């Protein structure tokens, strides 16, 4: 049996795209949540389903408290999104191979047309970042006009999650290829990072030591959440730096 420590040792530094989130400058304004919903055609589930905990955010701001009431102290806001694990727990449990690891981009993919909706992946995700389409949610006019044509509109019974804005990755790669060059660092970014007014989110190539995101992630006090599970997350958090 392979122990998590061994997996971590053997496949460290294998990611391609990564993210750094500075919790000290995050104000919890939810701009990233809104931007993500707009970019990725995420539906609004409405009051009733939200009450069941069926909100479909690909990124959410987590809040925690320290101490006993009334002496409570809020810890820094924590944006939580798919960590694009190098050794993801969601992948091996899918019976339909709908959540697979992209060899080309080193991301966890969600193939909507393969998904049969067992929700096994969401139950196995330690970060709880997967969202399930419990219904075909209706969008009243004129909301369908703001659909992003580069992203699939998901239907009922399909699991979905953060893709690290793979449509933007492909667009940038396509543009760079047509101009005969490589994708430059900072040329494009994810919707959440673009919308963040405090620039708390930085996105880029972690396998390129020159890039801003890999320089930040090697700063020392960065934390990867639930790293002890051996999931090899590609998102680094800074807190109390």
């Amino acid at each position, binding site marked *: 049996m392979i122990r998590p420590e061994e997996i971590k040792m053997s496949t460290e530094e294998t990611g391609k795209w990564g993210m750094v989130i500075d919790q000290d400058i995050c104000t919890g304004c939810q701009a990233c949540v809104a931007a993500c919903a707009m970019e990725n055609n995420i539906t609004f589930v409405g009051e009733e389903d939200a009450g069941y905990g069926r909100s479909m955010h690909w990124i959410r701001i987590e809040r925690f408290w320290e101490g006993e009431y009334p002496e409570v102290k809020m810890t820094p806001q924590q944006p939580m999104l798919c960590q694009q694990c190098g050794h993801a727990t969601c992948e091996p449990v899918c019976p339909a191979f709908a959540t*697979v690891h*992209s*060899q*080309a*981009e080193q*991301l966890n*993919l969600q*193939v*909507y*047309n*393969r998904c049969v909706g067992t929700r096994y992946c969401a139950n196995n995700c330690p970060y709880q970042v997967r969202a399930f389409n419990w219904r075909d949610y209706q969008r009243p006019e004129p909301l369908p006009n703001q659909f992003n044509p*580069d*992203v*699939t*509109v998901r239907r009922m019974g399909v699991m979905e999650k953060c*893709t690290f804005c*793979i*449509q933007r990755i*492909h667009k940038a790669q*396509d543009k760079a*290829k*047509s101009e005969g060059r490589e994708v430059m660092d900072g040329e494009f970014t994810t919707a959440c990072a673009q919308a963040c007014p405090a620039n708390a989110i930085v996105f880029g190539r972690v396998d390129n030591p020159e890039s801003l995101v890999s320089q930040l992630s090697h700063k020392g006090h960065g934390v990867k959440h639930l790293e002890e599970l051996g999931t090899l997350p590609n998102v680094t958090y800074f807190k109390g730096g």
Partner: protein
Amino acid sequence: MIKKFFDWLKQPLGLIAVGIVFLALFSAATYGIYTTQQTPEQPIDFPHNKHISFGIQCLYCHPGASKGPAAGIPSQAKCWACHNQIVKTRDSALLAPLKDAVMSGESIEWVPVAIVPDFVQFNHRAHVAAGKNCEDCHGDLTKMTIYENPQVFNMGWCLNCHIETAGDDQEKLIKLSDCGTCHY
């Protein structure tokens, strides 16, 4: 009652009835599938073959194919720019819908034929840049009037070509057979 019915079915007459019902269902299903594979009716019977015989390149009317994801359908202004100058087509009854659309400023509602499902993200530019010609996927349009698909655009057909194109290049094969290349 039900037993009586099944006994009746076992008789020669009953067997013939079962056969007729089966045939009716089968032909209805076949007809249903057949109708989905038919080329839809277009507002104007656009003759691709004639336009090509005049030496017009595909990219003249569908310039998006070399620049971005969608090849695009030319605007009616583009159609009319040529047809307005040709006396025969300017007053032709066949082109009345075009003339009406130009005069009233409403768009002609062409019916898309070469389509892929919503969960497939197709990019024309990458395919043109890789040296694919239009006719490799869209068929020989010199023989077509209204466009019809030469084959069903399904994933097996796409993937066959991707794997063939990659050849022995492992890096290219990984990229071209990756789910995330087309589905996101």
